[in-house]
């Protein structure tokens, strides 16, 4: 693999430090089907998924994060007739994040499309 080592990237008009690009990139992401036989559609920096129970999944990273101070974005598809199903961040460790898909104050649900994205510092 070739490595290009530069401190700035420019298109001739605008210039940005490579640190902004590296730090601003998602460090892991996943899109999976949480119904039927669970399956990962696509991902990056994910080694496996643990189907813990209804609507509860661990996303296990290949390359761990440096600490637990990272940020997680998550979303799910809409399930009729439950319009306010959400993906919650249940817990974080450096090597995994646990997502919980639920309707606030009621039950957990499996949905056909669960998404997660992680930003922060890599180990």
């Amino acid at each position, binding site marked *: *693999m070739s*490595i290009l080592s530069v401190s700035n990237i420019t298109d001739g008009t605008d210039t940005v430090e490579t640190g902004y690009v590296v730090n601003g990139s998602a*460090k892991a992401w*996943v899109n*999976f089907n949480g*119904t*039927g*036989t*669970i*399956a*990962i559609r*696509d*991902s*990056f*920096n*994910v*080694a*496996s*998924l*643990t*189907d*813990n*129970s*209804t609507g509860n999944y*661990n996303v*296990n990273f*290949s*390359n*761990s994060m*440096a*600490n*637990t101070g990272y940020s997680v974005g998550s979303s799910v598809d809409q399930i009729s007739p439950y319009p306010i199903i959400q993906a919650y961040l249940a817990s974080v460790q*450096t*090597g*995994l994040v646990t997502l919980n898909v639920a309707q606030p104050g009621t039950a957990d649900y*499996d949905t056909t499309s669960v998404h997660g994205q992680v930003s922060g510092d*890599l*180990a």
Partner: protein
Amino acid sequence: MSHLWDRLAEAKSRLAPVQSKYRVLFEDPTQPDAPAAVLVPDPNWMAAALEGNILPPIDTYLRDRDVPDGQPKEHPYAEPIGAMTEEEAIEYLIQKDIPPQVWRDYQGNRSVLKIVPVELIPSDRSFRNAWKINQEMEMAA
């Protein structure tokens, strides 16, 4: 040596994902009321495992479990290992992503971990929170 994350990025651009034909069922003996969990290998990770020279030795992950938050970890900088078979990759993943109390420390008589073909995982998730490993199936195997 390149960073693991860089190798994963390069591998994703080059390798076709591989959907594993296996799943790992397990029950955590420290949580007897919890249902059986199912470990699902990631297709891009499996492609990297089968290709070789991308993933670090499993020992590095095991040692990193004891590294405090914020301290440098070994696995991103370790020399990558060679290609694995799918079965070896599943064993690697068990050690990496399933708690040691399941695959290393458990000394009971019940079967708490089982590698199964994906077809044996129920596609109907009714009563998902009551799933347990079928001990009779284990006896008959």
